[in-house]
């Protein structure tokens, strides 16, 4: 699949009714000065393939794509990309009637990094380590693994919730039992302690000892029988019940742990949401998927565009899967909310019941504290159930800290009131029954809670170990991937900056948070962040190399998608480095369609020479509000000198200027490639005056070039024309004729034809003293074989 054309209307600098742009088999090169609408082409490509441009990815100054994308002249904006698979052209934006391989191409595009714009060049280098990791996440392609990590995280979270609930129950049971048995917190709560309490109550009630189960059963029957014979005092029963209630009620501050956990889960959920690639909530995506699948809709219910229900449901499922982390965090949060609300609700009922009892026996003064606390707990339940903000939960936690911390004082008053009621015998017998209930029922229940807690804790620890292994395995894998990425980026960097001894960058995955990637570079033996030593242009090319390395590796992993879009990314590098960037693209990305936008005429000319006729070339000269970018024939100095038609249509001044620029470019290439010694210049750049004479001498000396030597003589003979016309602002001493300028142009054209290979788009280079060849070897000047020379002789 390859791109064939782009249609844009009423978008950024492109007005309504603008003609479509063809895209060549190799790609598209757009050249023009600043402000002529070049980058709008990139905006159009992104809008057509990814719905919106990366121009406003950071929502700069609050401007987003919706606000900034429409053409100032108005009109519904439209950007549609078309692509060809053998025999057919498809709309890649709507995917109408598109076959599965085209749909797959677009899906890969949506998850790939293929657009680099000038403002993004330094993003990778300068971003904080965590953001650098995030920027590479789609490249890591670990979504499948991330689902496993999210599922493990969900299990850890559930285990923590269960563990917190059991800890609360255990604390509640232990506190109640310790109080009733009368032991301190530092004394072991076990069968021995419970038995000691049983013996003590039996002794107080003068019922003898009971060491065995049978003896305990006998004492229980005796106490119950005697108790039944004592007249029932309604108040006494209620006071005993009230005391029992208060013994069971934990201080409300105990729920602080539960609320703290809720805050942690809320933060985890919000963090997962913020990290999510998807902007739409998973609930919305799920509802959309169900709607489309159930009703087999062929039209989008929101934008009313036609859709393929099968493909849309598949795409939605893919998006939902990406949100699995959010789902897991939300599920954990909901589960904890439900558990917390339920636990607190039980507690509120106890408080309310205690409040009404206390009011009856002790008046409002003592009871109101319990009433107020019940009201506070009601507020907490409402907040927990409604999903209150983290700030609101913090307020409630502060309020919890000021609540009743112990019921000891009020229980003491109840005991005193019971004694005053003259019911000491009844109390003694009730204590015996209570002690027997503890040892036979409540202590075993407490032991079961404790065992369950120990088992849950072990499970949580095991799950955390698994989650830890998963995290470290991902980091180790990511380190391997970024090592490969850095190696390839270094290879590209060396290509652009050969022998500069400042390449060798490295990426290190740090053991921090979800993921964090540090970048460092070696600079003459020192390893530091590149910002410390690199010039702006070196930082730019380093950013470019990392982007290209990521694109190369992505393309190798997904060969179905090979598109590269570069918007004005060579602005800070000099001509030699731009030339090597062009060669790097030619050598390493010849399997890609490449779209390049540039305002640099030398880079554009170099791209034209290197990329050849498989590319479309678009040349913008100006921009107007009504007409948008003004396109002209995309000619360069190469075209002006080498095309007879263009040459003949030019004035002699224009042609002489083109000859000068073209000659300088060609002579510089040949001087470098043939290793011609050119006298150094420190105060001004090289020009024809010092580039040509040593080159001419070298060409004359080369035996294998002898057949072409007339070209050298013709350039020598015509070069004076360049000094008379177009090179200087002063008037020529005597006018030159159009024919004299054309002679120079023709001679330069012949030298270009003799030294520049049209197959590999490279000039000839020195192999050894006697042999010159282009990169592919199709154009060569080398000694003739001995038998051929003999035959000639």
């Amino acid at each position: 699949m390859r791109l064939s054309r782009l249609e844009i209307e009423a978008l950024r600098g492109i007005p309504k009714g603008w003609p479509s742009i063809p895209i060549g088999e190799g790609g598209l090169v757009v050249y023009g000065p600043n402000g002529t609408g070049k980058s709008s082409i990139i905006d159009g490509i992104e809008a057509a393939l990814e719905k919106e441009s990366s121009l406003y990815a950071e929502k700069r100054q609050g401007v987003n794509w919706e606000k900034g994308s429409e053409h100032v002249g108005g009109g519904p904006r439209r950007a549609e990309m078309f692509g060809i698979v053998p025999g057919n052209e498809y709309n890649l934006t709507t995917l109408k009637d598109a076959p599965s391989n085209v749909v797959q191409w677009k899906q890969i595009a949506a998850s790939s990094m293929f657009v680099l714009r000038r403002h993004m060049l330094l993003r990778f280098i300068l971003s904080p380590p965590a953001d650098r990791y995030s920027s590479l996440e789609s490249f890591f392609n670990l979504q499948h693994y991330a689902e496993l990590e999210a599922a493990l995280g969900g299990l850890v979270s559930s285990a923590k919730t269960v563990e917190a609930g059991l800890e609360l129950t255990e604390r509640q049971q232990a506190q109640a039992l310790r109080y009733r048995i009368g032991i301190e917190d530092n004394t072991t709560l076990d069968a021995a302690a419970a038995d000691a309490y049983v013996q003590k109550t039996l002794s107080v009630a003068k019922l003898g000892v009971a060491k065995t189960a049978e003896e305990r059963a006998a004492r229980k029957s005796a106490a119950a029988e005697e108790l039944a014979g004592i007249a029932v005092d309604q108040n006494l029963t209620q006071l005993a019940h009230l005391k029992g209630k208060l013994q069971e009620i934990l201080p409300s501050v105990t729920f602080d742990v539960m609320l703290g956990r809720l805050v942690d889960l809320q933060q985890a959920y919000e963090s997962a949401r913020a990290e999510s690639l998807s902007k739409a909530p998973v609930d919305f995506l799920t509802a959309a998927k169900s709607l489309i699948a159930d009703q087999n809709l062929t039209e989008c219910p929101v934008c009313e565009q036609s859709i393929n229900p099968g493909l849309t449901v598949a795409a939605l499922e893919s998006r939902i899967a990406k949100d699995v982390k959010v789902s897991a965090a939300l599920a954990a949060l909901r589960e904890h909310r439900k558990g917390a609300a339920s636990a607190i609700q039980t507690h509120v009922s106890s408080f309310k019941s205690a409040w009404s009892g206390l009011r009856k026996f002790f008046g409002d003064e003592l009871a109101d504290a319990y009433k107020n606390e019940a009201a506070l707990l009601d507020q907490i339940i409402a907040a927990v159930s409604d999903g209150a903000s983290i700030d609101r939960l913090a307020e409630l936690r502060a309020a919890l800290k000021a609540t009743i911390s112990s019921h000891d004082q009020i229980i003491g008053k109840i005991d005193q009131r019971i004694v005053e009621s003259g019911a000491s015998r009844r109390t003694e017998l009730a204590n015996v029954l209570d002690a027997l209930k503890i040892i036979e029922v409540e202590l075993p229940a407490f032991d079961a809670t404790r065992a369950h807690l120990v088992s849950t804790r072990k499970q949580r620890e095991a799950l955390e170990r698994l989650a830890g292994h998963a995290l470290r395995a991902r980091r180790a894998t990511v380190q391997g991937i970024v090592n490969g990425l850095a190696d390839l980026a270094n290879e590209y960097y060396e290509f652009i900056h050969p022998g500069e001894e400042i390449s060798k960058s490295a990426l290190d995955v740090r053991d921090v948070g979800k993921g964090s990637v540090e970048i460092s570079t070696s600079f003459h033996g020192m390893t530091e962040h590149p910002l410390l030593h690199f010039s702006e242009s070196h930082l730019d090319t380093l950013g470019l190399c990392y982007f290209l390395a990521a694109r190369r590796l992505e393309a190798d992993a997904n060969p179905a998608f090979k598109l590269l879009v570069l918007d004005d990314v060579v602005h800070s590098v000099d001509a030699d480095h731009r030339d090597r960037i062009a060669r790097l693209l030619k050598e390493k990305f010849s399997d890609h369609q490449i779209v390049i936008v540039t305002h640099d005429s030398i880079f554009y000319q170099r791209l034209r020479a290197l990329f050849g006729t498989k590319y479309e070339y678009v040349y913008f000269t100006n921009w107007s509000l009504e007409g948008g970018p003004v396109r002209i024939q995309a000619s360069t100095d190469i075209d002006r000198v080498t095309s007879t038609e263009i040459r003949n249509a030019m004035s002699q001044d224009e042609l002489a200027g083109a000859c000068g620029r073209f000659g300088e470019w060609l002579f510089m290439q040949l001087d470098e490639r043939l290793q011609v010694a050119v006298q150094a210049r420190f105060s001004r750049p090289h020009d024809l005056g010092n580039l040509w004479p040593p080159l001419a001498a070298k060409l004359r000396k080369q035996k294998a070039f002898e057949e072409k030597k007339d070209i050298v003589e013709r350039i020598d003979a015509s070069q004076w024309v360049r000094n008379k016309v177009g090179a200087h602002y002063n008037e020529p001493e005597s006018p030159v004729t159009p024919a004299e300028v054309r002679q120079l142009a023709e001679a330069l054209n012949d030298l270009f034809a003799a030294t520049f290979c049209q197959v590999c788009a490279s000039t000839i280079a020195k192999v050894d003293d006697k042999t010159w060849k282009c990169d592919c070897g199709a154009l060569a000047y080398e000694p003739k074989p001995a038998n051929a020379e003999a035959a000639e002789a």
Partner: protein
Amino acid sequence: MGDNLAVVKKAESPSQLALAELQKRVEEDTDLPAAIKDAFLEDLKSASLAALANLRTALGNEDNHGAA
């Protein structure tokens, strides 16, 4: 230099690389309870990885055992 690149290019997918690394780490962990370890290793071979069906069953079994 080529080694790292070879690792990246050779992998069928980064997720598989990470899963292989995870499997190795879990296998080498002698402190993990055997039932949980075996169940999780079994899940790593499953097509529906994130379901963690074996691990959930093992946790349920242990839970019942612990609570009983």
